[in-house]
């Protein structure tokens, strides 16, 4: 138990939060109770404590010397603890002579019975009062910030983020797993609702990135691990061997041309076409440096061939090349790792993989693309042109068995498909949808345009795609069986081609990546934002921001907006030059330490070591992140934690249990 001269004088302030708290918690009773607690000198209530007049109540009582420490019972501390610390400082007291009681998120919003809610609020207030009596004045820690930034993921969101940061004059590292940046958008033909060509708007940006003096693109690379903390991350990146020296290669493409082995299914083209062993995923790739696919290369199998090496005019081919680890020091990170598409074979009834003419939306994108395998023409496997085409919405989304969320972009790209397919083949197009979701500027107009074009819209979830005819006219066709919920009959519609509008899903390695960066994910596996409304591109880990589809399914405009937003956030952080951290670090009372070293191995940041001279442990405080693991273990109580020392926590325990 800590001793102090004189009694503390505590002010307790209860926030109504409009009706959010006051409707459930009997504030008057709570104030009565609070003022009965030992050392409580002032107990006030107010409609909105976070408002200016609310904060002034605190500052004024402090200035007038009525109180010397503060408790506010309001919303979650993560919401307004900072606000009231500031108000306390306004009043001339140290901001850490403050304790927050969460009676909104943890009481009024989750408790049905008002009496019980009031009792719970009392317990939390009593605890805060007991604890604040032991609070100590503290200073915030200032840490310098590295002003370089890392962007992970070279899709449109990452590209935008990188450009914003680079244009602001910051050094940016852009890490992309594939041989080229561009992401999914590079695969698309047109973009909804304006139908301008994806390449035309994307490639200039890719080139900018490639040429930007402030951007270093690390393509064909992956983040290995991350150390450090906000302002000072150390990131190790594995640069996979591409067997072609980036600095020597001028992208002439001769090696690709000369490579005799051209039969590898192209990932970029969804295996609709083949690529050589030496390849660039697509003509506009950035960087314009090919990759040798060692998996499939005969040279790596038996040392024969090596045509590429022979023909390379710049001797850029290097079969000896190995993975390299690059170490990057950055102050902020933007994660824009994007998404993967739903595996349509998971729904056998839709026949993907069984029926050649059942294809996914991404395959269609490649077909439509002028630079794609079919040069932009839509043909069935036998080469003939489809007369009747069906587009099935919500494949792998809005379905408890797969993903319950709405993938948000499928309606719009399905409409885009309906238009393009009709435009290019004159085929009759059916859209099978559950609900038509066209939120977004100009989207609804596009929907109406399609209806005007005579596209069929059938409202209902497709039950099955089959090739077993029941009537003669179904012979030789795919048949979609669906309940048309608008007229309430089950329909069987014969078609030549079926396109599955597959959902966006978190990357396969999303959880691996988020753990490397110490952030959380929501139940659906997408990265978790700090606040769903107010901090959509921030995370709970300071200095790590998220943008684009890695945070949830979204279309290009939203991804771009988030990329730019995240970049602005990162910029605001690293531009400060330094930042202030809560002083919740561990501290050591040397006189109590026996040098038993129990703590040393427990610290994840190596902040503790044994001092051979003094025969006790020494704590390197700047390295401490304030987890308190060592404090709980220290058998002498020599290690304690600011804001969370044993005595303070034990007072809080008494408070919640003993109501006073």
């Amino acid at each position: 138990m800590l001793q102090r001269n004189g009694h503390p004088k505590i002010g307790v302030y209860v926030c109504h939060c409009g009706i959010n708290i006051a409707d459930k918690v009997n504030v008057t009773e709570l104030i009565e109770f609070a003022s009965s607690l030992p050392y409580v000198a002032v107990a006030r209530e107010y409609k909105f404590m976070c408002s200016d007049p609310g904060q002034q109540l605190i500052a004024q009582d402090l200035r007038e010397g009525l109180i010397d420490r503060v408790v506010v019972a309001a919303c979650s501390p993560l919401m307004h603890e900072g606000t009231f610390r500031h108000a306390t400082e306004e009043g001339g007291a140290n901001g850490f002579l403050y304790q927050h009681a969460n009676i909104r998120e943890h009481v009024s919003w989750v408790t049905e019975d008002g009496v019980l809610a009031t009792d719970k609020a009392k317990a939390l207030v009593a605890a805060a009062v007991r604890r604040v009596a032991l609070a100590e004045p503290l200073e915030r820690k200032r840490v310098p910030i590295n002003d370089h930034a890392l962007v992970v993921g070279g899709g449109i969101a990452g590209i935008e983020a990188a450009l914003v940061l680079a244009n602001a004059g910051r050094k940016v590292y852009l890490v992309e797993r594939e041989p080229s940046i561009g992401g999914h958008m590079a695969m698309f033909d047109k973009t909804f609702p304006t139908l301008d060509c994806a390449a035309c708007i994307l490639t200039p940006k890719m080139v900018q990135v490639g040429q930007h003096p402030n951007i270093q693109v690390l393509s064909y690379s992956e983040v290995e691990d991350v150390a450090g903390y906000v302002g000072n991350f150390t990131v190790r990146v594995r640069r996979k061997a591409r067997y072609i020296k980036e600095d020597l290669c001028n992208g002439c493409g001769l090696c690709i041309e000369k490579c005799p082995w051209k039969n590898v299914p192209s990932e970029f083209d969804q295996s609709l076409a083949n690529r050589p062993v030496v390849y660039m995923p697509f003509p506009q790739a950035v960087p314009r440096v090919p990759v040798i696919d060692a998996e499939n290369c005969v040279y790596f199998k038996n040392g024969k061939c090596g045509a590429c090496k022979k023909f390379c005019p710049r001797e850029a081919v290097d079969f000896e090349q190995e993975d390299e680890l690059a170490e990057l020091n950055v102050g902020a990170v933007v994660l824009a790792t994007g998404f993967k598409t739903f595996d349509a074979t998971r729904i056998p009834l839709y026949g993907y993989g069984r029926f050649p003419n059942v294809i996914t939306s991404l395959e269609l994108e490649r077909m439509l693309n002028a630079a794609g395998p079919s040069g932009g023409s839509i043909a069935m496997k036998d080469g003939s042109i489809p007369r009747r085409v069906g587009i099935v919405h919500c494949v792998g989304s809005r379905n408890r068995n797969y993903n319950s969320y709405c993938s948000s972009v499928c309606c719009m790209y399905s409409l885009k498909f309906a238009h393009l397919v009709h435009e290019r083949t004159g085929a009759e197009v059916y859209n099978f949808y559950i609900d038509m979701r066209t939120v977004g500027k100009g989207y609804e107009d596009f929907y109406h345009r399609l209806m005007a074009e005579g596209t069929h819209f059938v409202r209902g979830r497709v039950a099955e795609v089959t090739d077993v005819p029941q009537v003669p006219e179904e012979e030789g066709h795919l048949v979609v069986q669906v309940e048309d919920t608008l007229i309430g009959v089950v329909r069987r519609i014969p078609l030549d081609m079926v396109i599955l509008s597959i959902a966006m899903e978190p990357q396969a390695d999303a959880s691996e990546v988020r753990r490397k960066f110490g952030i959380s994910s929501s139940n659906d596996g997408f990265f978790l934002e700090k606040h769903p409304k107010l901090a959509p591109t921030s995370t709970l880990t300071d200095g790590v921001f998220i943008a684009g589809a890695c945070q949830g399914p979204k279309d290009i405009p939203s991804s771009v907006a988030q990329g730019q937003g995240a970049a602005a956030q990162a910029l605001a952080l690293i531009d400060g030059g330094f930042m202030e951290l809560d002083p919740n670090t561990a501290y050591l009372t040397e006189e109590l330490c026996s040098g038993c070293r129990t703590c040393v191995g427990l610290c994840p940041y190596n902040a503790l070591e044994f001092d051979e001279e003094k025969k006790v442990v020494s704590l390197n405080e700047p390295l401490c992140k304030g987890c308190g693991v060592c404090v709980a273990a220290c058998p002498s109580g020599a290690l304690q934690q600011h804001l969370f020392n044993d005595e303070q926590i034990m007072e809080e325990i008494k408070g919640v249990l003993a109501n006073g």
Partner: protein
Amino acid sequence: MSKPKVGLYWCASCGGCEEAVVDLAEKILDVVAAVDIVFWPVALDFKKEDVEALADGELTAIFINGSIRLSEQEEMVHLLSRKAQYVIAFGSCAQLGGIPGLANLADRESIFEYVYRDAPSVVSTDGVFPQTRLAVPEGELKLPQFWDRVRALDEVIDVDYYLPGCPPTPKLIANALTALLEGKLPEKGAVLASSRALCYECDLNPTKPEKPSLKDIKRVWEIIPEPDKCLLAQGIICLGPVTRGGCEALCVKANMPCTGCFGPLDRVQDFGAKGLSAISSLFASNDEAELEALADKIPDVAGLFYKYSLPASLMFKGRGNTSER
């Protein structure tokens, strides 16, 4: 000017603390020269009346060993604390409840049933148990009430200082007396031994690895420890890191682990819980099953970590003389 009066008194104790005083050997003559020992049940005569006759505070200090189990003990220590300026809890039993405090794991009835009925050598005399009041042909006999719970001294009276140990070492006893006589006593409530854990004064501490960890746990009979090597580093659970120093690592010098008789350090509230926290933090695994296995290598967790301090555990503190859990 007359010499300061001091007294030594025992409650539920084994007499080891008295032996420790006798082990002052020739020093005891100096003590006798410096103070008047107005009573010391084991060695000198006194009567309760003698104590009652003393003016309040007439005693400079009363050294009380043993824990509190009987009504008379409680009455007596209340009387003594009135008469003495300083109350010094002497030894583990007075400070923390001591080894007899392990009795708090059982209650009065079960102890009686075993000792007077179920023990193998007892010849059942149709359920005869000792009675607190008994009429015999010649008159009435009384036995004192045997309580459910053993308590540390400071649960019953206000204690000024603590002399830790089972028993305290003669050296510490001498130091305490000197401090008392020279008026150099520290702040009230202080434990009159080292302020650091035993590791600090243990000769083997330098042999402990920079980052200690427990890959395996050995019981003392399972391993012949390498001499001159930290026992904890050899997988033997030594409570040196948790235990207040001052004994100069007597047990470790005898190749046996510290079992904690000097109790917790100033900023630790519960010896057992803290010891458990420190030791388990060293388990060299993050795998649930492996951790289970390691934990199972520590049978009788309570007996290990609360060998001397069960009555002082936060779990039972301030719970009166009942064994209510």
